[in-house]
C-alpha cells in the first residue's frame, strides 16, 4: 500500500508530509556537469546498499514518459527528474514510502512521504536511509556550510520539509495572503498547489521551510510544526464559524459534489480536485458520511492522468475516455469505503 492509501494524522487539514534530504558524493561534479559514464558509475555504486535495504531500482532512461509522469503524480520524483535526459534512477521502497532519486539536481535526494501530518517520523525514516549510505560513502560536507549542494538554497542540512495543507475556509476568507507574509518572517514558504501562481484549486497549499542552513534539523522541523498546527487550528475555527444561510448553501454544494462524484459519467481532472475538496470539507463538518479522508487522497492521486491511464488494461485513447475512466475510478474507490 502506498502512502496515498494509508491513514494519517490530522487529515482534516493536512494531506501529506514529505521530508527530503539532499546529499552529494565527494569526487564527482554535481549531476548537471556529470558525463553519462560517471552518472552510470554513481548509480551502480549506490545500487547495492540501497537494494540490500529493500529498495527497487527504476532506470528512468528505460521507462515510458507516461510511467515517468505517474511517478511525478505519486510524488516520488520531481517533474524535472521525470523529463530530464541522461542516466538517472529512482530507488523506491513502499511502506513506509521512501524514494531516492539518484542524479536529480544533486547526486542523492532521499525522501520519505507520509499521509497526513508527521514530519518527525518522516525525518527519522529519511535519515535512516541517509545513515545507511553514510557508512559507505563520503558525503560532500563543509564544517561551515554543512552538506554541499548544487543549489545554495539547500546548503546546510539539505533538508526540505513540505506539508500539503487543505485550507478551504481560510482560502475562502482571503487571509492566505497575510498568512503567507507572516510565514515568510518565520523562514517558511506557503504556495498554492494545483494552481497557477499563488492561487490554488481545491484549497490545497504547500508549506515548507525556506531556510536550510544555520539550524539543526529538529529546530527546522519544530518551527514548521508549530506553524502548521496553528494554521490547522485557525482553519478549524474558520470552518466552525460558517453558520446560518452560508452553512445551508455550503451543505447544498457539498451534497451536490458528493452526488456528482458518486454518479457522474465523465469527470475532468480539475473537476475531480474541486469535488474532492468539497467532500473532504464535508467529512470534517459531518455533512458527508461513510467516506474516509484517505479514500479521497487515494482518488486525488489515482485520478491523475498518467496514473489513471496506467491503471487500466485498455489505455484510454482520448480525453473523454479518460474522463469516463476517472468517473469509474471515483465510484470504485468510494464503494470500497
Amino acid at each position: 500500500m502506498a502512502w496515498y492509501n494509508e491513514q494519517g494524522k490530522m487529515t482534516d487539514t493536512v494531506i501529506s508530509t514529505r521530508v527530503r534530504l539532499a546529499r552529494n558524493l565527494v569526487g564527482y561534479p554535481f549531476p548537471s556537469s556529470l558525463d553519462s559514464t560517471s552518472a552510470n558509475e554513481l548509480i551502480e555504486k549506490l545500487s547495492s546498499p540501497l537494494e540490500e535495504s529493500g529498495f527497487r531500482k527504476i532506470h528512468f532512461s528505460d521507462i515510458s514518459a507516461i510511467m515517468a509522469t505517474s511517478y511525478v503524480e505519486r510524488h516520488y520524483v520531481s517533474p524535472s527528474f521525470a523529463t530530464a535526459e541522461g542516466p538517472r534512477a529512482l530507488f523506491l521502497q513502499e511502506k513506509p514510502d521512501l524514494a531516492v532519486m539518484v542524479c536529480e539536481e544533486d547526486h542523492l535526494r532521499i525522501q520519505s512521504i507520509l499521509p497526513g501530518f508527521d514530519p518527525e517520523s518522516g525525518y527519522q525514516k529519511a535519515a535512516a536511509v541517509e545513515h545507511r549510505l553514510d557508512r559507505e560513502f563520503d558525503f560532500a560536507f563543509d564544517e561551515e556550510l554543512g552538506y554541499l549542494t548544487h543549489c545554495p538554497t539547500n546548503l546546510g542540512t539539505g533538508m526540505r520539509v513540505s506539508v500539503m495543507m487543505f485550507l478551504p475556509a481560510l482560502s475562502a476568507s482571503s487571509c492566505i495572503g497575510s498568512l503567507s507574509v507572516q510565514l515568510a518572517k518565520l523562514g517558511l514558504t506557503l504556495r498554492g498547489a494545483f494552481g497557477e501562481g499563488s492561487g490554488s484549486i481545491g484549497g490545497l497549499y504547500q508549506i515548507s521551510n525556506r531556510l536550510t542552513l544555520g539550524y539543526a534539523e529538529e529546530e527546522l522541523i519544530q518551527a514548521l510544526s508549530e506553524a502548521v498546527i496553528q494554521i490547522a487550528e485557525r482553519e478549524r475555527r474558520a470552518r466552525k464559524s460558517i453558520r446560518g444561510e452560508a452553512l445551508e448553501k455550503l451543505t447544498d454544494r457539498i451534497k451536490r459534489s458528493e452526488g456528482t462524484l458518486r454518479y457522474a459519467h465523465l469527470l475532468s481532472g480539475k473537476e475531480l480536485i474541486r469535488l474532492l475538496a468539497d467532500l473532504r470539507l464535508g467529512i470534517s463538518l459531518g455533512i458527508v458520511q461513510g467516506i474516509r479522508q484517505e479514500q479521497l487522497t487515494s482518488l486525488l492521486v489515482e485520478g491523475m492522468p498518467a496514473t489513471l491511464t496506467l491503471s487500466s488494461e485498455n489505455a484510454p485513447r482520448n480525453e473523454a475516455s479518460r474522463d469516463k475512466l476517472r468517473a469509474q475510478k471515483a465510484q470504485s474507490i468510494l464503494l470500497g469505503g
Partner: protein
Amino acid sequence: MLCENCKKRTATVFYNEKLNGKSRSLSLCGECASKLREKGEIQDVTSMIESFADPFWATQDTLFNDFFGISSLPKKAEHSACSFCGSTLTDILQNGKVGCPECYSTFRDALTPLMRSLHGTSLHRGSVPQRQLAVRARNEQLGKLRKELQKALSEEDYESAASLRDEIRTLENGKEMNQNGLV
C-alpha cells in the same frame, strides 16, 4: 554588463522569472533592482508552482538569483576557475548553481557573504557525517596532545615529549592517509 534599466551602472542582479508559463530575465544594478522591487515590477520570490500534477516541488533557484548580485563581488575571483570542474565564479553567479562540491572551497571568500544573505547565516548547525565526527574527534585529540607536548618541553621532560611527539605524528599521518583516501 550594463544595467538594462538605467543603462549606466554595472548590472549585479540577475533576475529570472517564470510566471504563468512566460519567462523573463533581467540584468539590473542593485539600485534599479530595489526600485523595481518596491514598485512591485519584480518580485522577491518568483518561483511559482506551474505544474498541474505537481504541488510539491518548489524551485527556489530564482530566489537565489535575486539574492546574488546584491553583495559586491571581489573582482579578481571572477575569472579564476575551479580546478576540479572548471566552473568560474561568473558561471556560478549567472546560473545560481554551483558546479561541484570543490567550488565552495575554491570560491569561499566570494560565496560565504552570499550564503549569509541567502540564509541569514553561514554556519551549519545540523547533523554531520560520521567521517566528519571522526575528524573532529581527532582534531580535538591533536590539540590536547600538542598542549601536553608544550608543557613537557617547558618542564624539560624530554622522555614524555618524545612519546607525545610520536603519538602526534601517528595521528597526523592517519589524517593524511584519510584525506588522500577521500580525493
